């Protein structure tokens, strides 16, 4: 084990940058309460969002619940994932509440064997996207507040019943988004020296540490997501919680730099996950992630209303849900099945790959993740940057509504970065995503079809180019944000 690199994708001879060795940060990251220190402010903000969502202004642009959820949180999330890693899971306020609750209620059940996959979370991911459109969550502080409340209750229910981090690993749709997006992040929680792990006899990083007998109280958790550090590859399923860092008796785990998306180009057996190419559920999640990015952006441009109106006439309905269901089925099931099926078939027949069509489709689907992330980035950074300063008047308004005047009158003219700056950035994110996907797919094709790598590459490059073109087309469509339609 000692001579096996934890991430075979990273082959550079240069020692990686280690965020945990940066002066000042090292002590902070090793501080036992560092996670709690990050979680408390976010928990306070969450509570404020819930209260303002339920009792504050009903107008979304004037409410903290909608502004912080749909403008600032989503944008900051994708930008941090792009520039660093999954630090939002590290600071997750839901886990703080869960940790407090577990001081009183100890779960005794193991997560059901049949649900130890990503099917449920992929379905919940789709459900969130569906509810976003169905209930126009962006325009409803009330619904947004209840979504946050629902999240807290679900965390408490799941992790109150089931041991370990069942919610994070098998349920949380935001977490799954972060896991997939962080595969293209430049940082990874990783073993510094495999030889040290080879000599380690305690494996505290996975087992945790307990006090001496007879109490055997857990004094430091090991990885709750079943990622054994010496065999962990990449960021999938890693919440950056740093439990392994605190548990390791040899200080042998850091937050190391790596080539973004490099973990997608290889297919080793990963601790706690297995091989990507054998995980149809994970591939389905990657499909939702990649094609859902288009679906989510499609919902905010003008042509969607023409399509929805046409579908409503065909289906003879005036209700939004069935129309959305057909759209979701078309864009998240039929379209991926056709595109990925044809590309896999071409790779098999033309590229001479030995794999069958389904395993090929599963394998190459992960190649679309960088492009999908580029689409999410382009979309969410648009709202984040163009509405960057709106948090100021919205906060002023919330404070003023309590009768406190120390922040002054709301400055509603505070907006954000001008469109002329944001739009080139959006294009840049899309191009970056396309380049990332082409790079990953090219590497996969080289491994998969030694004789005709270009023939294996071209079908998937064509799928990527098609999705990229669709994303660029969407970006230049007139925006149209309607909370209601089909009325009258």
């Amino acid at each position, binding site marked *: 084990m000692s001579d096996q690199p934890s991430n075979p994708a990273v082959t550079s001879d240069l020692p990686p940058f280690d965020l945990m060795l940066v002066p000042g940060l090292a002590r902070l990251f090793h501080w036992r309460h560092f996670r709690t220190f990050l979680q408390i402010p976010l928990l306070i903000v969450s509570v404020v969002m819930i209260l303002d969502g339920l009792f504050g202004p009903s*107008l*979304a*642009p004037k*409410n903290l619940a*909608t*502004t912080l*959820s*749909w*403008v*600032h949180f989503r944008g900051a999330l994708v930008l941090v994932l792009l520039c660093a890693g999954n630090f939002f899971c590290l600071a997750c306020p839901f886990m703080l509440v869960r940790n407090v609750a577990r001081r009183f209620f100890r779960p005794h059940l193991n997560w059901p064997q049949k649900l130890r996959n990503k099917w449920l979370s992929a379905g919940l991911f789709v459900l969130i996207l569906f509810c976003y459109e169905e209930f*126009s969550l*962006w*325009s409803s502080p009330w619904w947004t507040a209840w979504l946050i409340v629902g999240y807290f209750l679900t965390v408490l229910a799941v992790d109150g019943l089931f041991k370990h981090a069942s919610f994070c690993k098998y349920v949380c749709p935001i977490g799954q988004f972060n896991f997939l997006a962080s595969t293209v992040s430049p940082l990874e929680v990783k073993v510094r020296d495999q030889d040290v792990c080879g000599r380690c006899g305690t494996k505290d990083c996975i087992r945790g540490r307990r006090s001496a007998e007879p109490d055997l109280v857990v004094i430091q958790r090991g990885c709750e997501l079943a990622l054994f550090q010496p065999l962990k590859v990449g960021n999938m399923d890693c919440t950056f919680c740093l439990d392994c860092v605190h548990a390791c008796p040899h200080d042998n785990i850091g937050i190391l730099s790596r080539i973004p998306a490099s973990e997608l180009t290889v297919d080793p057996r990963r601790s706690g996950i297995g091989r990507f190419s054998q995980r149809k559920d994970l591939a389905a999640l990657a499909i939702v992630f990649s094609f859902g990015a288009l679906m989510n952006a499609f919902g*905010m441009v*003008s042509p969607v209303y023409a399509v929805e109106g046409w579908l409503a006439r065909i289906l003879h309905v005036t209700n939004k849900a069935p129309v959305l269901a057909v759209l979701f089925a078309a864009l998240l099931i039929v379209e991926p099945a056709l595109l990925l099926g044809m590309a896999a078939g071409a790779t098999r027949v033309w590229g001479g790959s030995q794999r069958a069509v389904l395993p090929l489709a599963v394998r190459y689907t992960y190649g679309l993740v960088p492009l999908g992330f580029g689409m999410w980035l382009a979309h969410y950074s648009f*709202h*984040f940057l*163009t*509405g960057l300063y*709106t948090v100021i008047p919205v906060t002023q308004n919330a404070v003023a509504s309590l009768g406190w005047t120390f922040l002054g009158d709301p400055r*509603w*003219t505070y*907006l*954000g970065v001008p469109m002329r700056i944001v739009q080139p950035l959006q294009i840049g994110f899309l191009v970056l995503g396309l380049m990332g996907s082409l790079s990953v797919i090219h590497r996969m094709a080289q491994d998969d079809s030694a004789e005709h790598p270009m023939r294996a590459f071209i079908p998937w490059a064509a799928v990527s180019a098609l999705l990229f073109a669709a994303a660029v087309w969407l970006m230049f469509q*007139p*925006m*149209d*944000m*309607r*909370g*209601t*339609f089909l*009325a009258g």
Partner: protein
Amino acid sequence: MSHAGMSPLFGEAKEVGAGQYQGRLEFAMGGDWIILMHVTLSDGEKFDRQENVPGVAAN
């Protein structure tokens, strides 16, 4: 705009007759718009009114 964070527009209404004010707003995009009127009376009293303009079609 009903979406949080989307750019608002600002305009000023001018008196065109007794108790009548007129202003012009050019919606920047399609969607559900909300016009918020902040009114200051001659005696200094302030109040707000809201007018919904749903389903503005994009060009």
